[in-house]
């Protein structure tokens, strides 16, 4: 450990840290552009200059290691003067684009001008005219007038993806960021360039002009689109009074987690957020039986429990099949196991998931669901057989998730389902299954849930709702507890469980994996 003083505060910090890092960890912000914790120090922006006692020149906080007894000043008159000087140089080559720039509100240059600048322009001469809308990637737009040449983008593509699509061409004040000829930045991590660009030079074509960031609330969640479980922010717009917005979620951004995804997320996870708002089931679908005006939780569980009881009494439990999926939380999979396998002694408990893809060698896994490992720890849950086989052996089908629909052509599904007497579906999104079953109950998506998921490395991560669940439905864990109650299963056990947290507490006691 090393003891040093920053701005008259004595800090104890780990050896090998830079002054900037040590300051950051103690809540002291030293302004910087080119520094990024994922890369080696660059030292070119010159914003992080600080005063160190004994050193005649100002030193860079980003690349000077902490030393025992060091006395650092981050706000001395000399430092403030240097900071303003460097800031003025940045601003002299930067367009007044704030009114039309997407980065406004989360822009380092704005922030630093606000905190450390607030001087008038003394530039009388013209700024360099540069290209303002260069499509450097499918979802990326480069504005060379806004670029501060911090080279974070260049270094990201060299050090993280190893693809090196961007470079710095020309010299001096003619320097600019460029791709090679018409080649595009093309890999599964291009969206991270938008995050790391400290200004609005690289922006997201998808997000362009859609929303001002100060209207967005950054809600924490976990990406459910593969087994990595990248920690994310979902930027949610709460809406305006009397104004209907087309979506709630406007953007997905990475949330730093050194043990899971570092500072990054893949483009697939970043760009696939439309599903949060589009194609959702709003209300229950009732195709058979008495159509209730409002299908309550109680009524639904009564109907389904009756069907289950009917078959159980005829010793026909083998004619009941349950299809789960691995986007369900650990708590939901656990309850499914306790209700169906242990409670009812059912044998036909399967899983139907979205198809696997190819792992990209970095974050994105081949499995495209967030909780395959959780299912493995709780299961086993074998893959669902084909619809034909399913139909011939089953009179009652309980399906959690709509993924089955994509696995067979609609004709085949209908033919199979028509042979099954009773079918009930819990799903978040509309699908061809909606017309094939008796009742559909809308369920929340991962972003709307509380619970835990187990990622590809076996790490259990907590979820809390980033979005409100707005449909007339209820989460799967609720449905499972309702069924347990309606079937009269082990009241002493199930009766005490009222939330995913309660379920997790029980899981920790009963399953070695979750202990």
């Amino acid at each position, binding site marked *: 450990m090393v003891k040093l003083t920053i701005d008259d505060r004595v800090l104890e910090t780990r050896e090998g840290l830079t002054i900037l890092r040590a300051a950051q960890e103690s809540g002291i912000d030293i302004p910087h552009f080119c520094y990024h914790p994922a890369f080696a120090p660059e030292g070119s922006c010159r914003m992080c200059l600080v005063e160190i006692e004994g050193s005649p020149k100002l030193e860079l906080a980003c690349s000077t290691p902490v030393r025992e007894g060091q006395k650092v000043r981050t706000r001395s008159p000399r430092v403030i003067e240097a900071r303003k000087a460097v800031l003025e140089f940045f601003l002299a080559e930067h367009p007044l684009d704030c009114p039309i720039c997407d980065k406004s509100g989360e822009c380092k240059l704005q922030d630093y001008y606000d905190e450390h600048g607030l001087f008038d322009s003394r530039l009388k001469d013209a700024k360099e005219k540069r290209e303002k809308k260069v499509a450097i990637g499918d979802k990326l737009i480069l504005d060379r007038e806004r670029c501060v040449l911090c080279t974070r983008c260049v270094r990201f593509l060299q050090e993280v993806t190893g693809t*090196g699509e961007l470079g710095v*061409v020309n010299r001096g004040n003619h320097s600019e960021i460029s791709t090679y000829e018409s080649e595009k930045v093309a890999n599964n991590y291009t969206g991270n360039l938008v995050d790391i660009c400290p200004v609005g030079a690289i922006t997201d074509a998808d997000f362009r002009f859609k929303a001002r960031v100060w209207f967005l609330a950054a809600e924490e969640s976990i990406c459910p689109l593969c087994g990595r479980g990248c920690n994310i922010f979902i930027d949610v717009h709460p809406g305006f009074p009397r104004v209907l917005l087309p979506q709630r979620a406007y953007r997905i951004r990475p949330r730093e987690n050194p043990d899971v995804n570092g500072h990054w997320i893949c483009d697939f996870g970043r760009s696939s957020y439309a599903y949060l708002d589009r194609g959702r089931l709003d209300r229950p679908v009732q195709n058979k039986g008495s159509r209730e005006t409002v299908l309550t939780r109680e009524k639904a569980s009564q109907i389904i429990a009756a069907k289950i009881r009917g078959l159980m009494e005829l010793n026909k439990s083998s004619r009941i099949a349950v299809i789960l999926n691995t986007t369900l939380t650990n708590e939901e999979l656990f309850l499914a196991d306790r209700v169906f396998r242990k409670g009812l002694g059912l044998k036909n408990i399967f899983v139907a998931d979205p198809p696997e893809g190819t792992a990209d060698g970095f974050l994105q896994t081949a499995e495209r669901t967030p909780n395959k490992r959780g299912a493995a720890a709780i299961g086993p849950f074998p893959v669902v057989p084909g619809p034909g086989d399913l139909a011939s052996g089953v009179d009652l089908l309980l399906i959690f998730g709509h993924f089955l629909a994509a696995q067979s052509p609609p004709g085949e599904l209908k033919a199979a389902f028509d042979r099954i007497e009773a079918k009930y579906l819990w799903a978040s999104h509309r699908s061809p299954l909606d017309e094939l079953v008796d009742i559909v109950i809308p369920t929340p998506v991962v972003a709307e849930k509380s619970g835990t998921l187990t990622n590809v490395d076996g790490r259990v991560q907590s979820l809390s709702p980033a979005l409100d669940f707005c449909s007339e439905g209820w989460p799967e864990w609720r449905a499972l507890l309702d069924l347990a109650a309606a079937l009269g299963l082990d009241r002493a056990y199930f009766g005490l469980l009222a939330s995913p947290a309660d379920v997790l507490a029980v899981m920790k006691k009963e399953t070695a994996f979750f202990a």
Partner: protein
Amino acid sequence: MRRPYSETLLRKIDELASRYPKKEAALIPVLRLVQEEAGCLSPDEEEFVAQTLGLKRMRVREVITFYTMLTRRPLGKYHIQVCANLSCSLLGSATLLEYLQKKLGIGVGETSADRKFTLTPVECLGACDQAPCMMVNTEYHGNLDPEEIDRILAGLD
């Protein structure tokens, strides 16, 4: 335009690359040799050099655009570079530059229609005791005046 490079060039490139623990260190000397033979460094040359030295083309482009002596556009047969720095200016290089523009019928930075001459300014050539100086391709010429310039130009075929 893709063209076969001479055996001499290819051998020279191999020899150069062998001088360094990493052959990419030979990039700048190699680019100068390739430029000499090909006239300029077009995308074809970038591709060739990138492949030969195991580099991405972006890295080659980054280097070409940084150094003054590397050009992506073809120059005239004789590249006349007049030193515009202090010692030469003190001894009248500005006048000589004007004289050359009139004599060659081109402006600064331009190439003559017959592709024979390109005229550009250049920073200090390191021959300040012979100011004013100019460089024609790789030949230095100092102690210039209009007559001397006429003499030099006459000697260029």
